[in-house]
């Protein structure tokens, strides 16, 4: 029978790229995204290495100690970015601050993505009453004006739990609604594809259908959302810290460092105190956004079907 003959392109049997591999290739080809990735990577590495690097970069590597004799020094050979109003080295604090800002951004993002994906995929997959219930709840959470609730909750929980985790928890709990909605709508759309029916028909349990079939296909959306969220949550952290409702003041974070711009003397007189964190935030966000764009292009499902 003729149909028995192999019909595939037999020429190159080893060429078999997974969709992820294809996305990776496309991403690597995207210059802007790659530069941004490298930049972000450097920022992360520098932040992680802060304790190791600090002694080499500054004569006063302790970020918490107040050095009355070294306050408000403009950038010079010893202090490359100067010192702040507590006589702490700005560069050192910038590195330590990166840890916190990135940690807050990343943990809150992880929390948001986790809750959002869980709720969204369950609602989307099961539909019906489960869906309406979960989506009502989502609407409910989305109804809280973000900034307002973060401020209120943070004020309440202040001092009860360690400040940093309060912030992460509060931001996380208030922000997952959008992700849940997007994941739900993606799952709904993806569910229309017959491979989901196929998976059920071959005996996959609902959990397996969600985890093994739906989520990998929704993952591209989730990843892109995650990058956007990561960026906006870093901004949220800095904004809240700027207003005084964010990371506890004793912990250096970019937002807390930026809060110095609130001081009447700093804005014009001592730009070295707030410029570095402002630039660090701006460039980090910029690079995350570019990475997000790159991922969006790379993960575009149109390239697969």
């Amino acid at each position, binding site marked *: 029978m003729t149909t028995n003959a192999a019909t595939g392109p037999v020429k190159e049997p080893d060429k078999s790229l997974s969709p992820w591999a294809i996305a990776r290739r496309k991403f690597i080809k995207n210059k802007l995204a790659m530069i941004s990735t490298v930049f972000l990577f450097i920022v992360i590495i520098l932040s992680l290495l802060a304790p190791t690097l600090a002694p080499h970069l500054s004569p006063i590597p302790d970020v918490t100690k107040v050095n009355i004799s070294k306050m408000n020094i403009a950038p010079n050979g010893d202090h490359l970015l100067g010192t702040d109003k507590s006589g702490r080295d700005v560069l050192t604090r910038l590195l330590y601050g990166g840890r916190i800002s990135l940690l807050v951004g990343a943990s809150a993002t992880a929390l948001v993505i986790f809750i959002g994906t869980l709720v969204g995929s369950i609602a989307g997959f099961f539909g019906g009453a489960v869906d309406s219930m979960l989506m009502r709840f989502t*609407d409910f959470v989305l109804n809280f004006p973000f*900034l*307002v609730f973060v401020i*209120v909750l943070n*004020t309440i929980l202040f001092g009860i739990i360690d400040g940093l985790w309060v912030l992460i928890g509060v931001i996380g709990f208030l922000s997952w609604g959008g992700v849940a909605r997007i994941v739900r709508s993606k799952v709904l759309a993806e569910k229309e594809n017959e491979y989901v029916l196929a998976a059920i028909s071959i005996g996959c349990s609902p959990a397996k259908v969600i985890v093994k079939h739906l989520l990998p296909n929704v993952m591209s959306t989730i990843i892109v959302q995650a990058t956007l969220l990561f960026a906006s949550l870093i901004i949220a952290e800095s904004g809240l810290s*700027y207003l*005084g409702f964010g990371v506890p003041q004793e912990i250096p974070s970019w937002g807390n460092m930026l809060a110095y711009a609130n001081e009447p003397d700093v804005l014009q007189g001592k730009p070295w105190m707030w410029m570095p964190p402002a630039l660090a935030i*701006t460039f980090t966000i910029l690079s995350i956004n570019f990475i997000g764009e790159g991922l969006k292009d790379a993960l575009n499902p149109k390239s697969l079907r």
Partner: protein
Amino acid sequence: MVKYVLRRLLGMIPMLFLVSVVVFFLAKAMPGDSLSGEIDPLNTNPEYIAEMREKLGYNDPIPKQYLSWVTGFVQGDFGKSTRYKMPVSDLIMEKIPNTVFLALTALLITYVLAFAMGMYSGRKPYTLGDNLIAGFNYTGLAIPSFVAGVFAIYFFAFKLHWFPFAGSVDIEVQNGTIDYWMSRIHHVMLPAFILGLFSTASYTQFLRNDLIENSRKDFVRTARAKGTPIGKIYNVHILRNSIIPLVTFLGFDIAGLMSGAVITEKIFSYPGIGLLFLDSVNNRDYPTVMAITMMLSALVLVGNLIADILYGVVDPRIRLG
């Protein structure tokens, strides 16, 4: 349509109820007595406090307290501000015009700019102009609004003297005159721009991408096959489709801008709801905090409703009924 709106409004009630429960318990969870500004904070006489607590119902069971709070609330009695010693409703009414004015201006600036830039970029993607606009957008998205605000004051107010650095109006002009409104506009421009910066950037980018995407749609080919000039295709056929999502953002913006105004109002000392809120949190003025929180939550709901209605209006595929 009217029926739809009514039904939706009705549907908000359970949601508002839940929000009110949450707000109530949050307020209860805050240190201190939160529901009213009636207790004189400077009077530390224990008998006085006990008497007032009894009088104000703090010793009632929680559901009863909630009930009395919420009934007051429904009747427009939001309590009395502990800080300003005046009814919260009056306080809010005093500030809200400013915030609304700010938000509307921001909205206007956002949409005008986003349309101008988005249309240009969408029609001429990958050109120099598009790249410049993209550069502006990415910067707008990456700079935290308070950094942008602080910068803007520094340059536009202090260095260039183009705009005032604080306030909502020049006090010396007569209320209601042309000068008065000019002064208000003059004052609101800079904060409104900063407030709308993020949306401007994201809408521009959104419109651009949507235009490009829509320009690849089949109906564009149909229009070309009809002999319709390309300019008209963009300005009518494509734009009309791309506007739909943008217009619906409008609804969400309403609430978003109001709460986003917190930071902007603070930086520009612009006396609106945002500043009032911040001030109230800082001063533990719970009745005000609660009222504003409730108000903004309700506004989110209304915003969603408006978004849905607008959606129905601009998109013939969605019929409201």
